[in-house]
């Protein structure tokens, strides 16, 4: 669950910013012949509703409905008392607590005589909610609106960039505080967790690849204990719904640390020019430094996920240069793997 700072600050995300996002969405809805846009949210898929309302759930689920005209409605399974709290952290929209969010939104569609409603990621919508929604709005035609939403989401406004920069700063501070000589995974990660949350992080997921000489897989911190001579730490940090990842590889020996620092400098200096050339450019810069690129990926907010792979060594390229992203690499060196990730603005 989310248990870090969850607050809406109008100086960080003004109501006007949220309204501008909704205006963009409404413009696309008009072009696409939709009278309403519907998005589901829970803590695994919060990004679309966070972007269009300012609200991220800490638990449970809900459905946000943006009609072409009128006030957006957020129906949530959270209780009436929690709904009062949601009212203080959701910038735009009316909160309706209900055990059946699908029914409430369906009835709203019927009341507004919505002819065509688009649903984000329709196939993924819980069937119980989808059925309730559709049965409560029998005169509404429903379609998947994910393709309509994607290009709008591929552009970031100043507020979103600022939140992501803050999350990146928190992640950097955690990395700076990391002790490469930590006795165990737990000794390594606890100070990161503490610092991030003391500084106002909404969430932090920490993963560790405890022995880069053998395995590049990032484990959860309750399934790894011993740190080898080379290891990697991945921090996925959220600040008020702005997410970044940062991965750093550490070597306990001074020679290893020098090699890793050199690769880090190369990686930090890399600026992607376009999706198609990223693969070749990355291969070249690491080859020039005696290493081999094994894989890479770019992540950006897409649909319900705060970070989804939009380009990489194994996926089609849908990367947008006009929004922040996270670049991750897995590089093979003489001593084993070297992992890195950083946000790109």
């Amino acid at each position, binding site marked *: 669950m989310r248990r*870090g700072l969850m607050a809406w600050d109008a100086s960080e995300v003004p109501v006007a910013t949220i309204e501008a996002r909704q205006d963009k969405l409404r413009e696309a809805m008009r072009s696409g012949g939709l009278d309403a846009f519907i998005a589901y949210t829970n803590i695994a898929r919060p990004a679309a509703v966070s972007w269009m309302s300012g609200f991220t759930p800490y638990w449970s689920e809900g459905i946000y409905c943006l009609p072409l005209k009128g006030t957006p409605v957020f129906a949530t399974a959270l209780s009436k008392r929690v709904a009062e709290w949601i009212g203080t952290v959701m910038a735009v929209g009316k909160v309706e607590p209900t055990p059946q969010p699908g029914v409430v939104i369906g009835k709203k569609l019927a009341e507004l005589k919505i002819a065509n409603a688009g649903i984000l990621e329709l196939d993924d919508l819980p*069937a119980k909610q989808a059925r309730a929604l559709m049965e409560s709005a029998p005169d509404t035609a429903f379609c998947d609106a994910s393709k309509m939403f994607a290009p709008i989401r591929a552009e970031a406004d100043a507020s979103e960039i600022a939140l992501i920069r803050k999350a990146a700063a928190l992640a950097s501070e955690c990395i700076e505080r990391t002790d490469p000589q930590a006795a165990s995974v737990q000794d390594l990660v606890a100070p990161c967790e503490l610092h991030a949350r003391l500084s106002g992080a909404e969430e932090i997921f920490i993963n560790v690849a405890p022995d880069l000489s053998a395995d590049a897989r990032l484990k959860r911190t309750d399934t790894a*204990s011993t740190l080898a001579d080379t290891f990697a730490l991945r921090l996925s940090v959220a600040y008020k719904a702005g997410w970044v990842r940062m991965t750093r590889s550490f070597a306990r020996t001074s020679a290893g640390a020098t090699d890793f620092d050199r690769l880090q400098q190369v990686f930090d200096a890399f600026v992607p020019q376009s999706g198609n050339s990223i693969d070749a450019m990355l291969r070249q810069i690491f080859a020039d430094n005696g290493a081999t690129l094994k894989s890479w990926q770019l992540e950006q907010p897409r649909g319900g996920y705060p970070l989804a792979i939009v380009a990489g060594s194994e996926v089609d390229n849908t990367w947008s240069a006009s929004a922040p992203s996270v670049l991750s690499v897995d590089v093979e060196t003489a001593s084993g793997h070297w992992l890195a990730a950083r946000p790109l603005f």
Partner: protein
Amino acid sequence: MAGNAANMSGGSTLQKARTEALREAMAREKIDVLVLMGNNWHADYLRYGTDFGIQEGQGIALVRADGSTTLLLDDAAECERARGETAGCDVVHAPRLVQETRDRIKRSGNRSLAASPMHLLPFGLLKLEEDDLRIADGAPVIEQLLMTKMEVELDCIRRASVLADEGYVIFRDAARPGRKDYELIAEIEGFFRSRGIAENFMIIGVGGQEVRGMAPPGGKVLKAGDLVTTELSPCVDGYYAQLCRTLVVGEASETQKKAFSVYQEALEEGIKTVRAGVTAADVARAENDVFRKYDLGKYTTSEYTRVRGHGMGLFLDQKPQILEDVDIKLIDGMTMIVHPNTYHPDAGYMVLGDALVVRPDGHECLSTLSRELFSVNAS
């Protein structure tokens, strides 16, 4: 360290026991394939079937009657992690999770399908009905298994409960005037990570008579006289144990002490009622009768409180919910928290709750922390 890292062999024993129990239940219900869904909110069903603790994205497990299990995950990094952290599962990266699951079910040709939890079943899987494949509710197969714990599961919950007690001491020591609510939670999270605990459910309330519940921290600054309420719930090997306590910043007022005594009495009465064979309603009634005795009955209604306790295990808030209209019978081995948390008109929202294991002749109380209204230095 309390987490999996120190208990990988135990984890294996645990998963073998769960797998066997699941297969038996599937055979009993004549189910060919059990479809289990999960994400970071509801990780319990997926964890029971695969032992994978999902962190990001979504996952679906296809547990087959022949003993094989396929775990499909839409997040590439989670997929790699699952390959390292689960045994006995075929792990598949499925960026188009629903479509891939649908295709696999169709290809398998199985006819007796069930899914759990039904409220997470993706809409896209209903398209299987076009191929005459209907998905039944898998609750009869797995719900009882989730509610009633085996001894290997109870070991995890006992360890989590010890950490909840220790964590509350950290929380209490961190509470002082001028600190923000999220800083208290930061301290406890740092402590839990140092002990190998990756997950925790926790909400908080700060203030006085005006506070009507708990929520995530929003930046409230503690001041003298405030009540600070929390329920904290560390998770060991996937199993949660919860503890609810209230503290006062500074000396508790007579009003606060008097109000809290009602919660102490209600908790005691609720806990005294717990034994195999009674219903969840019996426990709720015992708690609520105490409030009614003091003319506080209205504060036991849904206007002021959600539940008077609940089951806990791989999900923090599992069945049975402790409410006067829930007639689920308590069974030996169930784990639950009894918590008469609610609003008090004189003092504000107060919480108090202990974790228990239901036993044939009573209960085993897992929480060892004093049930007092704690007080911390206000200077």
